[in-house]
């Protein structure tokens, strides 16, 4: 039997694992698909290639299709996010100069307490902070803003877009005091000796949606058979990635020259949640640093789309209500239900929820009875109700 070929774009990061594993471990072939994986260099390139039909689907920053839906991008056909690929996987790093100053003040680089880390940083930042993020519409940008909002430091914070492979260099050149980036690029900066890791993204927000599987609406609606097969293959790869003992093998596969082209030892840190926070080898264990599947991680909650849309609209002077409506439409819970039910996914009864309300794993009603959702709380107790968005 010949396999139907689909072209999938990815940017080389550890969270591209679901697409790479789906191909390499045969989950795509099981669904009769051959994944032709195209390595891309920037998010703009990924968006343009998807928009012009040069690729069939993309591993993409979750806020990017939302920004497109809000009209904050080129005039392309509509994009839909059909499933979340990963939660977490980001880390905040500070420059060696700031790290040294924080250490002199007795800071212990715990990696998991946003309040202590923020106080320690503010004590040495001198009221100014240049922060790098990978893209204007990124979960990294949202995490940094959320972490620092309402503080004395906030007015002095400037956020810049810097391509992840250049973060370390930009920090060494003094362009950046801090950055928030997906692995392996935070660990790479630590290895290069230019900075130290301060916080895991999940310490700020327990379930920060990082990447999604994004298709054009036209593809998703007119080629349902291939869309379903693609989703099931990727979903099974996500499930495999969260089964215990598989992450080291995933790191080996990802690190190959044709994918990330890095020493497996570097990609492994984020995947195993064992991060070296300084170049002298201080290791911090952060369980579930990145999550691909467990706790219904793949479900594209419409409330999540609304939350991100509200935040982005505020910064671009757009009407929040319209932005949230447009964003909710592009998170395809309907396709998720239709295509993944047959693969055995248990599906939550609702398609929206109050974001940020769960400090612990919580059981909620599902089609099969009950499903355990992973925690999704913000460190400061913030919540977002899509029916009554207050700010």
């Amino acid at each position, binding site marked *: 039997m010949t396999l139907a070929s689909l072209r999938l774009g990815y940017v080389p990061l550890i969270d591209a694992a679901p697409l790479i594993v789906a191909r390499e471990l045969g989950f795509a072939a099981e669904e009769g698909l051959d994944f032709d994986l195209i390595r891309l260099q920037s*998010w703009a390139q990924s968006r*343009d290639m998807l928009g*012009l039909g040069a690729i069939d689907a993309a591993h993409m920053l979750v806020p990017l299709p939302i920004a497109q839906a809000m009209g904050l991008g*080129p005039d392309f056909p509509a994009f839909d996010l059909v499933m979340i690929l990963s939660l977490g996987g980001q880390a905040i790093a500070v420059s060696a100069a700031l790290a040294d100053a924080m250490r002199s003040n007795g800071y212990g680089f715990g990696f998991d307490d946003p309040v202590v880390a923020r106080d320690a940083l503010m004590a040495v930042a001198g009221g100014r902070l240049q922060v790098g993020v990978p*893209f204007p519409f990124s979960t990294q940008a949202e995490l940094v803003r959320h972490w620092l909002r309402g503080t004395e430091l906030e007015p002095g914070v400037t956020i*810049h*877009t810097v*391509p992840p492979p*250049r973060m370390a260099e930009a920090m060494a050149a003094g362009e950046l005091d801090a950055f928030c980036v997906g692995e392996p690029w935070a660990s790479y900066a630590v290895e290069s000796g230019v900075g130290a890791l301060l916080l895991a993204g999940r310490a700020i927000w327990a379930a920060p949606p990082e990447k999604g599987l994004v298709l054009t609406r036209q593809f998703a609606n007119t080629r349902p058979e291939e869309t379903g097969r693609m989703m099931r293959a990727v979903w099974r790869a996500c499930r495999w990635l969260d089964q215990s003992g598989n992450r080291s093998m995933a790191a080996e596969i990802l690190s190959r020259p044709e994918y990330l082209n890095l020493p497996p030892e570097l990609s492994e840190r984020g995947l195993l949640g064992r991060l070296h926070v300084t170049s002298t080898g201080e290791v911090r264990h952060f369980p579930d640093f990145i999550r691909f599947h467990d706790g219904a991680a793949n479900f594209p909650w419409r409330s999540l789309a609304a939350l991100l849309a509200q935040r982005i609209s505020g910064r671009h002077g757009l009407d929040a209500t319209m932005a949230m409506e447009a964003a909710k439409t592009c998170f395809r819970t309907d396709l998720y239900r239709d295509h993944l039910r047959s693969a055995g996914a248990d599906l939550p009864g609702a398609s929206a929820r109050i974001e940020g309300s769960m400090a612990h794993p919580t059981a909620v009603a599902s089609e099969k009875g009950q499903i355990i959702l992973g925690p999704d709380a913000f460190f400061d107790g913030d919540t977002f109700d899509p029916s009554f968005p207050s700010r």
Partner: protein
Amino acid sequence: MTRLSIIVVERDRDRAMRIVDGLMASGTHQVVVIAEETGLARRIADQNPDIVLIDVADPSRDVLEELALVSGPMERPVAMFVDRSDEQMTRAAIEAGVSAYVVDGLQPERIKPILDAAIARFHMFHKMRAELAATKAALEDRKIIDRAKAILMKARGIDEEAAYALLRKTAMDQKRRVADIASQLVMAAGLLS
């Protein structure tokens, strides 16, 4: 008509020069090349250009995306070319490997000759790169076939022509390329020796 200020973001010096030549031939413009990624956003802001041209696959594109979004009262709004042109032109540009960022309000008839020139130059590089890759692959194929032939000649005591005929017949039977069969043989021989 005022001269247009164009920035070309390109690290490769030869490539940049040829793009500049192409642009100058399309009209009187002021063209500046930026070869460094360090401080790219600041350098571009200092120049206050009408158009920025950059390789579609350049990682620094995301920096330009940010500039394109900035539209405070003091800044000139920058729009992406793809926003405001006919789709055919956009597709041609991206397929040729060039993306353009154009200041808001610039008339399409002023943009078109510049884009045409850029597309033509980028096309040329694209083609050269593809040809280079094909030549390299052909060379690799020939090397591996030569090694496979040598292994067969030694193991079976046949001459070069017979060795090649054997490889070709096997490839045809298996519906594979001669180079693929040769590479399998070389690998297997490596394991056995």
